[in-house]
């Protein structure tokens, strides 16, 4: 029996409009799915470093897509060519769409020219997962680091991106910092573009 559909069925995905990205689902849905991502990947690896790498790879695929979609939909087809531009895009637009708020902070590293940090007091992916003690410094933020790397790499700003816990005085839970270290070619190009 053919069901009476409420939403219009499209013959093909290419006919379906891109939509404005305003649809919502529950935070729990994401939390449950994400914890399965972590659990599943744990069965595929031998150590924490590999687990983080797999989470990063999963995030990278999301980042690549988010870059294409959001530059088109949220930024009127503006393609970022400058370092601060792409960082601002990530800190504001990407964060707002994916996590419902702009990131807490974007800072330039004090010790190295090629380092920048995006920090979040309570990164979404770290909110529901309690890391067992025997997993040491494992950080689910690796998934978000992957998203950031996916955006940067595809936009032409290759970088090494990692997630770190930073204990904050007076706070029970550490904040999460996404550390971005740009490749040399990016720094050279930035200097050339002036």
């Amino acid at each position, binding site marked *: 029996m053919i069901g009476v559909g409420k939403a219009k069925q499209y013959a*093909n995905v*290419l006919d379906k409009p891109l939509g404005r990205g305003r649809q919502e689902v529950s935070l729990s849905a994401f939390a449950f799915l994400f914890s399965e991502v972590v659990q599943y990947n744990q069965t595929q690896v031998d150590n924490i470093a590999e687990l983080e790498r797999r989470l990063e790879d999963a995030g990278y695929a999301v980042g*690549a897509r988010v870059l*294409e979609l959001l*530059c*088109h939909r949220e930024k009127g087809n503006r393609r970022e060519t400058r370092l601060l531009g792409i960082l601002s895009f990530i800190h504001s637009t990407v964060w707002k769409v994916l996590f419902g708020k702009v990131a807490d902070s974007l800072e330039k590293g004090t010790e190295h020219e090629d380092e920048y940090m995006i920090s979040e007091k309570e990164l979404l992916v770290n909110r529901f997962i309690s890391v067992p003690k025997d997993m040491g410094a494992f950080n689910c933020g690796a998934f978000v680091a992957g998203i950031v790397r996916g955006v940067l790499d595809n*936009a032409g700003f290759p970088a090494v991106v990692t997630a770190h816990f930073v204990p904050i005085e007076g706070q029970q839970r550490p904040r999460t910092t996404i550390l971005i270290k740009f490749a040399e070619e990016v720094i050279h190009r930035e200097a050339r573009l002036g």
Partner: protein
Amino acid sequence: MASTACFVIVSKNDIPIYEAEVGSAPKKEDLAYHHQFILHAALDVVQDLAWTTNAMFLRSVDRFNDLVVSVYVTAGHTRFMLLHDSRSEDGIKSFFQEVHELYIKIFLNPLYLPGSRIASSHFDTKVRALARKYL
């Protein structure tokens, strides 16, 4: 409509992932290869130009005899390249913009591997229809 129009999509890694001869002139295989060669040769120019502007539509970036190379670079540095003899710039921009939307939908498919060939026949049909409409 343009009698010569060769449309190619080139991935960020300089690999062609889609081609179509969309002009009205009868198709000849060796001519198609010739066109793709010209477009590939223009990639360096495109790359340099892409870093000088926030716009995706780069207009005409190169010429080859009476043929013009027009390019559109997406946020992820996928290049839409058109080799053509017609001069309607508005049409070309609209063509690129509508193909861009189709491309994003392909790209959003989690089962599509970014940088791989676009195999969807629906995509091909729609691109050719857009070419007939705008070029």
